[in-house]
């Protein structure tokens, strides 16, 4: 009994991993072959980059604020303005900025992509594309995945600025730090690797979110229920994968 069900689960896991790998390979190979749908790419970039700004801004703002507060109260015995500024700067740019932005985008955009493409699958719109001599990978998947890869770093850059600003607000107005000193400290601590490691992470996360959103939608079946579970799977799987890959990316960049 146990063996049989374990075997079944393992088989299913292996099959979907294989399917996902195939899906990724196909998408990547269609990325470089014309025709290219620039208008859909632009639409998706606006959808991801522009319409996700409010949620990303809010989450990073409050994270910056809470880090400032927490690092001050936790480290107050040897606290100085320098410590708070650096903790805020490091946690936001290296970790929380990319991870939070990616999780928000997974909930917003990944879910939406899975639902949209899933609906197209179960209503045969994807088959219709094929019969009208349009490759669904090129028309639907490639623009979404590229938009994710390009736009998440932009979102994260903006989120970094807003998050650091959140920390600044708390430091100045609640902790009574000196504004000029705080800014100077932030600036002095800031290293370019903080920013570009965060943005590289963001690109990887953008790939994960859009790829899993599209994959789950593309392979959904069985009407409204199938689309529903595709959406859930897309969000859950990409959230987990974001957190796991974040660890390995950190290790790649910073562990020596």
């Amino acid at each position: 009994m146990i063996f049989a069900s374990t075997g079944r689960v393992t088989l299913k896991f292996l099959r979907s991993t294989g399917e996902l790998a195939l899906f990724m390979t196909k998408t990547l190979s269609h990325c470089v072959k014309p025709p290219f749908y620039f208008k859909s790419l632009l639409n998706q970039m606006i959808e991801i980059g522009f319409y996700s700004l409010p949620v990303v801004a809010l989450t990073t703002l409050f994270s910056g604020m809470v880090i400032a507060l927490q690092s001050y109260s936790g480290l107050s015995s040897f606290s100085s303005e320098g410590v708070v500024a650096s903790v805020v700067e490091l946690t936001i740019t290296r970790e929380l900025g990319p991870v939070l932005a990616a999780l928000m985008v997974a909930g917003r955009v990944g879910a939406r992509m899975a639902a949209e493409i899933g609906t197209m699958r179960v209503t045969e719109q994807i088959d219709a594309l094929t019969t009208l001599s349009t490759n669904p990978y090129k028309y639907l998947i490639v623009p979404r995945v590229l938009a994710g890869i390009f736009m998440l770093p932009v979102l994260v850059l903006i989120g970094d600025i807003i998050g650091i600003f959140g920390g600044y607000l708390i430091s100045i107005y609640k902790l009574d730090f000196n504004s000029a000193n705080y800014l100077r400290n932030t600036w002095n601590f800031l290293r370019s690797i903080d920013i570009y490691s965060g943005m590289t992470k963001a690109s990887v996360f953008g790939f994960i979110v859009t790829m899993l959103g599209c994959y789950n939608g593309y392979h959904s079946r069985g009407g409204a229920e199938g689309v529903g579970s595709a959406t859930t799977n897309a969000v859950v799987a990409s959230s987990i994968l974001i957190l796991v890959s974040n660890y390995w990316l950190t290790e790649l960049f910073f562990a020596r």
Partner: protein
Amino acid sequence: MTEFKVEMTNVKKAFGPKKVLDRVDLSVKKGESLVIIGGSGTGKSVTIKCIQGLLVPDSGSIKVDGTEIVGMSERQLEQINQKTSMLFQGAALFDSLNIWENVAFGLVEGKKMKKSEAKEIAIEKLRQVGLTPDVANLYPDEVSGGMKKRIGLARAIATNPELIFFDEPTTGLDPIMSDVINNLIRDCVTNLGATAITITHDMSSVRKIADRVAMLYKGKIIWQGSVAEINSTDNPYIQQFVNGRAEGPIQMEIKS
């Protein structure tokens, strides 16, 4: 050159344990109109999806214009699909595009025609299926089911394909509109020289559209013949289907 547009030999297709097609042999001559009849769920839609490469048969051979399409690469299949088109059972209109963009899709994306030019053709095709130009700017969710069907039909014939599949073209239409559609399908074959494969349950459609009729039952083509023969044949299956009787050799699987 072969005289056949489509030749299926020994085609099998199963979904899991469920055998849907079990050695289907069917051929269609160039410029001929074939109608496939058969009960719901006997695999009529599956049959035509196999011919377009939307589903891959488990075994057997399918030739279009003498070229084997089973096992063909995606790109070669795209070439074949340039010459074919399909009206889907559920219309499968693109929700994100308005009506005329739907009808013009194959012209704009497939044949790279200019949008203004394609729009004119789209409006003309809409007129042919009995729709006025003022629906052109509506979206699919703003029109009725019967209209969707006709828009799907307009989209299928817009590119003047050589081989057209109509999946239940008159289901859900009133008798008068059905007749308009039947005439239009007949016209595609007689005047434009297209080859048509139509699925229908509607015997008046069969009589109007068909040159030849084939009946699918339990995964096989159990009878085929000219449209005149369906009235004279003593095949009990055909007699039962044509006269629409519950009693006879065809047992509907009624699940409670």
